[in-house]
């Protein structure tokens, strides 16, 4: 059974300017531990779709199942990382942020601290456990956000263009780190991006989305050995293929 099943999901917004289609008739499945990227230009509905899977938006039609059960709103089986690195709580240290989900789950304090530190180690920030977010750089804050989303062990990790606001060099480092983290934790990941190279680097499969109306146009598997080399010929071939599917 696929881990995540998206059945014919549509969302229509009611705006003062009339009804706007956010996303229409999106259907696809995602297997356990698969890394899937939603790629497309602005307005194609990829963020909308991610938010629906997260449970923050309710679809006008269609259904989403995780582990066979239909989702109703947000839940602790899914972790989410947003693009805005101000998503961390400024009034808690890095460790305090990461431990948040565990607190909500009622995990006792010593256990919490241990797990939080472990996850900070996973993203290579254990030395900054007691720092407040405003003392950390953008890239470091995003790493803490990833650790926070993973600490309470959700089965799914949802990421909405998490590295888009970082400079190119930091972004490359973060992509490598994410690939390592995924290899170690084996979560099912749904990753939204408009950056084709990023999608080819990270994903097992890419869902190409197009706007007007927002739909899943097609799916492109990425069969490259990891670790992937962005400068290799096969990599660039895949990129070209994706660009073709997006453009035409």
């Amino acid at each position: 059974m696929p881990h995540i099943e998206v059945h014919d999901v549509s969302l229509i917004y009611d705006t003062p300017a009339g009804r706007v289609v956010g996303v229409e008739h999106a259907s696809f499945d995602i297997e356990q531990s698969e890394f899937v990227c939603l790629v497309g230009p602005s307005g194609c509905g990829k963020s909308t779709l991610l938010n629906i899977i997260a449970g923050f938006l309710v679809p006008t039609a269609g259904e989403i199942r995780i582990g066979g059960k239909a989702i109703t709103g947000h839940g602790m089986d899914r972790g989410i990382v947003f693009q805005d690195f101000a998503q961390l709580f400024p009034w808690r240290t890095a460790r305090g942020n990461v431990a948040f989900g565990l607190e909500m789950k009622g995990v006792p304090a010593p256990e919490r601290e241990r797990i939080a530190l472990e996850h900070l180690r996973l993203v290579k920030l254990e030395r900054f456990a007691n720092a407040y977010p405003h003392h950390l750089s953008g890239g470091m804050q995003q790493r803490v956000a990833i650790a926070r989303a993973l600490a309470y062990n959700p089965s799914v990790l949802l990421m909405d263009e998490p590295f888009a606001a970082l400079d190119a060099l930091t972004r490359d480092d973060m992509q490598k780190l994410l690939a390592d983290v995924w290899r170690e934790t084996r979560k099912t990941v749904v990753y939204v991006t408009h950056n084709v190279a990023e999608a080819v680097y990270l994903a097992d499969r890419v869902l190409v989305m197009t706007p007007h109306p927002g739909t899943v146009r097609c799916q492109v598997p990425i069969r490259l050995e990891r670790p992937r080399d962005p400068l290799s010929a096969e990599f660039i071939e895949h990129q070209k293929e994706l660009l073709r599917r997006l453009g035409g």
Partner: protein
Amino acid sequence: MQSIKAALARASKRWGEALRTAFPFVVVGALWEVAARLQIFPVRLFPSLESIAAAFVRLTISGVLPHHAADTVLRLIVGFALAASIGVATGVAMGRSRLAEDLALPLVSMAAPIPGIAYAPLFLLWFGPGNISAVLLVGFASAFPIILNTWTGVKAVKDVWLRSALALGADGRRLFHEVILPGALPYILTGLRLGFAQAWRILVGVEMLAAVSWGLGWMIFGAREFLNTDVMLEGVAVIGMIGLTLEKLVFKPIEDFTVVRWGMMT
């Protein structure tokens, strides 16, 4: 050797700063003293700094000044505590519930632009002279900046924090305590600061309206009868000092320990 030089440099810098801060006061003080001694204005109306200081000492020793000051500060604390609790509660309700906001906002916006002191005679009429009127008026009038700022703060809690917290399993009361309150704190503290300044202003005015028999405002106003300008001026100085002290001792440390430490405010 280097560290001694550095320490000396630091010390002299601090001395320099202290002198620079004191300089304007020295100049103004000197001008005042000269004007007072030359008796440009009648001595009763324009006392020398010496007599002002003497009045201060005299009243402190006799216990009169501490009594006035204590009564004023007590009223301030009670009135402000009232305003803070009602103000924050109302502001939070308005920020979280559209219904509460729709119902409360028109009433709050209408009452807010009216200076608190304008209600003083009304309160005196309703509750009679004395502590109750003063405390209620202070509580009422200083609640408005607190309500408005808290409301703004709760609404300004970043969406990305709320969503993250929801995804992390927080809900209802835990969402409120762990995310909304700390998130709105910079605004709440600003509101409390403004409310406090408001409370102080109104209290002094109410005490002057002969609502009480002990209090700094009353002391100053009463001194007018006997042309005791020295008492009045030292009363004014005491009021200024208390206000400044409370601000430094109470608000600044709270701010430093919370929102400044978290980088939410500088």
